[in-house]
């Protein structure tokens, strides 16, 4: 459908293909490991090992294996990189095995905290008046754009980087904006995704808000008591579908819609009515020119906090009725800026495998929400269009619609 921009001009719209993807998360390294873990409903949450958590209520997180990350180190320069850079290098490395010649014109990546643990190392060294020898290295590798620049450099890419930091919605905002850039016809190829590495400051922050739980993460459950954090990186190669098809590229899926909204209710809490998430989902449907009935599965933001799940659940029930819903954060935790990107990859895999990923740790579904939760076990289903939600601090809400690959 042509789109009318602010000038009232009807613009033809390009279709947007996902031609390659790469992922590193607690579910595993790469698409194959991730799909296998989704099929077996793997619980990837484990006790935190990277820093002290004895004074925190929550003591667990979804963590990426350092052993795997370190296996990929290549020389002295790599050893200086932040874990977040190594995750981005691994994710982009997988993408490049599928599309070796993918040269983006623009890179749009979401994150919330960049190389935060290097900032912590620096502050702790200052505080104890010793160990500052490595401070120039920490400072140079701390900025949020660094892991993205590092990953690009590793593969000879020098595209300009827009790093979106819209809190927990960052990854979905990045994919959504990248989608709009390609759909407008102004760009042919955009690299997008998100990353975040677990850090003490952020972990303690969510704990101080009592947003994280000492128990299991149970999204949309009556007994839900909060989130657990996670980490990881995921990247998607977006390309004009017509040109991708013309060169014979493998089309993994199509991104068909994006919605963004801002909820001004509170810096950290959503409007209880669910109006913010609802507007984002409605805008995604409008952007895709499809109806709520066309959506077969929703990968919810589903943090398992009392307020998020109530607001999101209300909005989903009002808009979509009994569509299948799950939150894969139950398996891997909430990876913040990476969440939307990892969950977009989960949606790609769900479409390819015709699988509804599970909402594990479900015990007593919240009857007030009246949602059709894919409880505990993944299951086969015919799915053509899926919606992925991400909502964050600051009232940022983002939804993307992804469609199974079709021929043009």
């Amino acid at each position, binding site marked *: 459908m042509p789109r009318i921009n602010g000038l009232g001009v009807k613009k033809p719209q390009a279709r947007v293909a996902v031609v390659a993807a790469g992922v590193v998360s607690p579910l595993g390294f790469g698409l194959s490991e991730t799909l296998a873990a989704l099929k077996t409903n793997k619980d990837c949450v484990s006790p935190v090992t990277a820093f002290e958590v004895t004074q925190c209520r929550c003591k667990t997180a979804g963590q990426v294996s350092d052993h795997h990350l370190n296996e990929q180190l290549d020389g002295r320069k790599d050893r200086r990189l932040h874990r977040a850079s190594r995750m981005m290098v691994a994710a982009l490395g997988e993408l490049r095995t599928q599309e070796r010649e993918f040269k983006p014109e623009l890179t749009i990546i979401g994150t919330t905290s960049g190389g935060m643990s290097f900032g912590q190392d620096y502050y702790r060294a200052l505080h104890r008046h010793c160990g500052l020898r490595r401070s120039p290295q920490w400072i140079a590798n701390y900025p949020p754009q660094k892991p993205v620049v590092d990953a690009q450099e590793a593969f000879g890419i020098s595209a300009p980087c827009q790093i979106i930091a819209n809190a927990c919605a960052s990854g979905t905002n990045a994919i959504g904006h990248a989608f709009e850039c390609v759909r407008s016809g102004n760009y042919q190829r955009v690299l997008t995704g998100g990353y975040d590495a677990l850090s003490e400051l952020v972990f303690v922050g969510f704990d101080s808000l009592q947003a994280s739980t000492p128990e299991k993460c149970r999204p949309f459950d009556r007994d839900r008591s909060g989130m657990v954090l996670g980490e990881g990186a995921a990247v998607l190669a977006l390309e004009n579908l017509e040109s991708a098809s013309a060169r014979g590229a493998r089309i993994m899926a199509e991104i068909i819609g994006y919605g*963004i*909204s801002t909820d001004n209710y509170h810096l950290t809490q959503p409007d209880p009515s669910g109006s913010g998430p609802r507007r984002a989902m409605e805008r995604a449907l409008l952007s895709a020119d499809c109806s709520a009935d066309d959506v077969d599965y929703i990968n919810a933001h589903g943090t398992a906090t009392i307020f998020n799940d109530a607001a999101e659940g209300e909005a989903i029930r009002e808009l979509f009725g009994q569509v299948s819903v799950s939150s894969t954060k139950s398996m891997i935790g909430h990876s913040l800026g990476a969440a939307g990107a990892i969950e977009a990859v989960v949606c790609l895999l769900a479409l390819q495998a015709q699988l509804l990923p599970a909402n594990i740790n479900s015990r007593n579904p919240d009857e007030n929400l009246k949602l059709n939760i894919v409880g505990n076990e993944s299951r086969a289903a015919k799915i053509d269009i899926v919606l992925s939600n991400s909502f964050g601090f600051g009232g940022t809400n983002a939804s993307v619609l992804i469609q199974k690959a079709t021929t043009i």
Partner: protein
Amino acid sequence: MSLRIAGMGWVTPLGRGLNSVWERLIRGDEATAQPISDPISHRRYCAFRVPDEKLKDLPLHPRLRRASAISRFAAAAGLDALAQARFAIGEIDLQRMALVFAISNGGVIYTKRFYHDVVESGAQSASPLLFPETVFNAPASHLAAILGIEGASYTIVGDGVVGILAAKMASDLLDNEPLDACLIVGTEEADWLLCDAYHKWRVLKKEPPIELFHNPPHGMILSEGAGAVLLARKGSTQVDAIDPGGNFSNRREASEIVRRILHHLAVDDGCVVASANGTFVDLAEATAMEKELPQSVVYSPKRALGESVGASAIWQTIVAAEALQTKQLPPMLDSGPYTRPGVDVSGGRAIVLSCGLNQQVAGLRLSI
């Protein structure tokens, strides 16, 4: 698509208000550095600070009650830009306006306080009031709440280039979305921790002046404040082109990317508002300008205003727009081959060039 500047606002160490800061720059005034002490190792640094009284007339909005300086600077600059735009082009439908924030170091004061409590007394001392203010998009969220914006709001992070990348994003949004305008805001707050970090990274000097285009470079002085530009389809200054540039892996490569951007944006009759700040950036820009635009009149506002990182490219853009409007550039003092008194510029075009400290380079061109 015609992309124009409809309104501007800035909060700087030389004051607040478009005309008053511009007049001071034209007079050759430089901000006065204030000492900042590191309470841990008792080192002394200097920074250019925004005078407290410049924010006294901010609206009494609940969101600003606990907000950090970075959010308050941003709100002041953003509201000033909107006020100027309303005067210039009439009422703006805020539901058809997007917000794009350019952030570099973010809310470093609250982040440091939050983590200091954790380091000193353990996780149980962490403040749930401070943590939300440490998030990069807190300033954008506060301004969105003050203005009642319910649509697109993005915060993008990067080095000193981030303001130009924000302008690029705004340009893409205006092209794709049913929007009339996009408010871009760059903001930064100064703190001893940042001074110490930049000093350890060997790009900061302890006392002014910032000596531009000196070889070897002696370092920059950090500053704080915010700049805001309302991009729309009406307005007196046109954004001709935005080059989002690329990333350099070493300093020689920085110069080459700057050269490529200049080549793309170059015009015979333009002036250049550079990002030279007393660091390696100066050499990268000077080398590129010698190759591509050897006759151009060059100005960098950083000797007068300091290096405000997240706000810096927006300040440069405002300087370029003001130069085009008033047909003059402020003086460049003690700046090697670019030293000169204030000059008239009549070409009608200006290039804003930005080379960041963390590998990013970009530029844009304005005209009237």
